[in-house]
């Protein structure tokens, strides 16, 4: 066996270098557009239209001035970049908190308790996981109108309470890493059911909640379709992706330096967060696939 393996290694000596070269090429492919973005954000428009540049220039401050200028970038009149980032935070933070808290709440309910419709409820949650929200948008607009939520962020935030996929992952986690005995011990000590959940169960679910919070954050932060339709004409409430869409809207005489800087400003926060949390994110992605 040993002989066979060394033989195989000899004949395959080219395999590893080839794979390294391809992997490095793919990494460059992943980074390259962002590198061009970074460089172009520091150049003036006249330089950018001459091709690809690899060395930064000195126009970043000028680009920033244009980006914030109400004439060069007309959407500033309604909502500028910083405001759009703030709006995205105002939507995303409560969304993440509600989504992760209530997903844990719901998953706890179907894991810890035995009740008549438990199987049915769980089967239902599992079945609706695949329904995409884009399809029901017309009805969501109607609900928002009926509940007088037009022109507010509520129709974007409240639906997070019913996030079937997050419930699914929380339940998966509870089944493997949470013992119902702890709940029973707490009951003997006289704690109420909701208190047991909040004080005892929640801290034990922290690792899974953190992973789910990252993905909930990314989904809400990056969402373009729902805010675009729900906020509709209330452009002063624009979120970051809507602002980005507005950046591209001026077709004639584009100021490329300004656009690239605007894009860069929206990429930087998420890039920093990604490299800080990449270990957990990659692990979370892997978890997502092996659930079947």
């Amino acid at each position: 066996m040993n002989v066979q393996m060394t033989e195989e290694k000899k004949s395959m000596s080219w395999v590893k270098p080839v794979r390294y070269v391809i992997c490095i090429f793919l990494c460059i492919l992943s980074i390259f557009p962002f590198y061009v973005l970074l460089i172009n954000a520091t150049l003036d428009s006249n330089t950018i239209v001459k091709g690809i540049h690899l060395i930064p220039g000195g126009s970043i401050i000028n680009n920033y001035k244009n980006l914030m200028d109400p004439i060069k970038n007309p959407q500033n009149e309604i909502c500028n970049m910083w405001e759009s980032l703030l709006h995205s935070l105002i939507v995303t933070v409560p969304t993440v908190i509600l989504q992760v808290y209530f997903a844990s709440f719901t998953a706890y309910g179907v894991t810890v308790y035995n009740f008549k419709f438990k199987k049915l409820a769980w089967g239902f949650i599992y079945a609706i996981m695949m329904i995409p929200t884009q399809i029901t948008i017309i009805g969501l607009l109607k609900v928002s109108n009926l509940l007088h939520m037009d022109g507010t962020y509520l129709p974007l935030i409240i639906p997070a309470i019913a996030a079937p996929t997050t419930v699914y992952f929380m339940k998966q986690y509870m089944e493997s890493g949470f013992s119902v005995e702890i709940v029973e011990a707490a009951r003997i000590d006289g704690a109420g059911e909701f208190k047991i959940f909040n004080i005892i169960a929640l801290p034990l679910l922290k690792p899974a909640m953190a992973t789910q919070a990252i993905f909930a954050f990314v989904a809400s932060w990056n969402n373009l379709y729902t805010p675009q339709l729900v906020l509709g004409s209330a452009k002063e409430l624009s979120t970051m992706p809507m602002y980005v869409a507005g950046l591209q809207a001026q077709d004639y005489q584009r100021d490329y330096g300004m656009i690239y800087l605007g894009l860069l400003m929206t990429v930087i926060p998420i890039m920093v967060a990604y490299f800080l949390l990449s270990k957990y994110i990659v692990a979370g992605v892997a978890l997502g696939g092996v659930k079947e």
Partner: protein
Amino acid sequence: MNNKKKTVEYGKYGYAFIAPFFIVFLIFQFYPLLYTFYASTLVKAGRGSAVTFDLVGNYSKFIFGSDKTFWYSLGITVVLWLLNFIPQIIMSLLLASWFTDQHNKLKGQGAYKVIIYMPNIITAATIAVLFNNLFCSQGSIIVFLRDICKVKIPDGGILDHGWYSLIIIAFIQFWMWYGNTMIVLIAGIMGINPSLYEAAMVDGATANQQFFKITLPLLKPILQYTMVTSCIGGLQMFDIPSLFNKGGPDMLIGQDKVRSTRTVVMLIKDYIAGGETSSSYNVGRASAYSVCLFIVTLAVSMIFFLATSERKEHK
């Protein structure tokens, strides 16, 4: 036994714990779904006129009638999905097999994963506008290809050319998603019992044989799962085509002029909001499209569930 009795007593709390989920689901997802069905029966007679109830009016006119817009959009959406999914699954499988290859262990796998996955986490809107600016007629990449590499670029640039736009959008989707699929497949391969490979090696199986006879069959459930989630996601494709070239130029299919990169969800949005690509508001029409997209999505997941349950029965 004693255990069970106690939990039964507390059973009613179970309802309290699942109540918020179901209340919010009913109001914000179930009612909207029903309302969308209802709205699809409201027919708009003309510009500015009131709507009338007609159960099949919108369907007979906009789905099964002479207006083939929906089917073209659905076709374009499916083409976009296939153009990105086929290379994506092949590339992901290949990379996953390299990263799990015990004979040729690659160093720095963690870093590769982190970098290749990165585009997936960046705002799709930002990526679409970025690629628009790189590929428009004055865009850095186009200028580089045209002036420095002397590649022939069609008149009016790439964005005014239907097929080129489709290919670039498919490439962006591929580029954003193959890292995700790769990580999922690596996890799947790592989950396969290593003793199977050991046994195969003792029997003298080659690396290729191991891949096709052990890895692929055992990976089938995960491949199916990847395919169905990707397909459902692909059917809802919106951000990239919408911001990359706003539905693209008209393309001639037979006698009909078709927006070359307008996906179904973009079409729906155009009739809800007027949109940048059409000035007609017709919620009934948009609802009929939504219902049809819902049915297609449902059909895809049903096929998937049938395929997986069949597999379980065989076992």
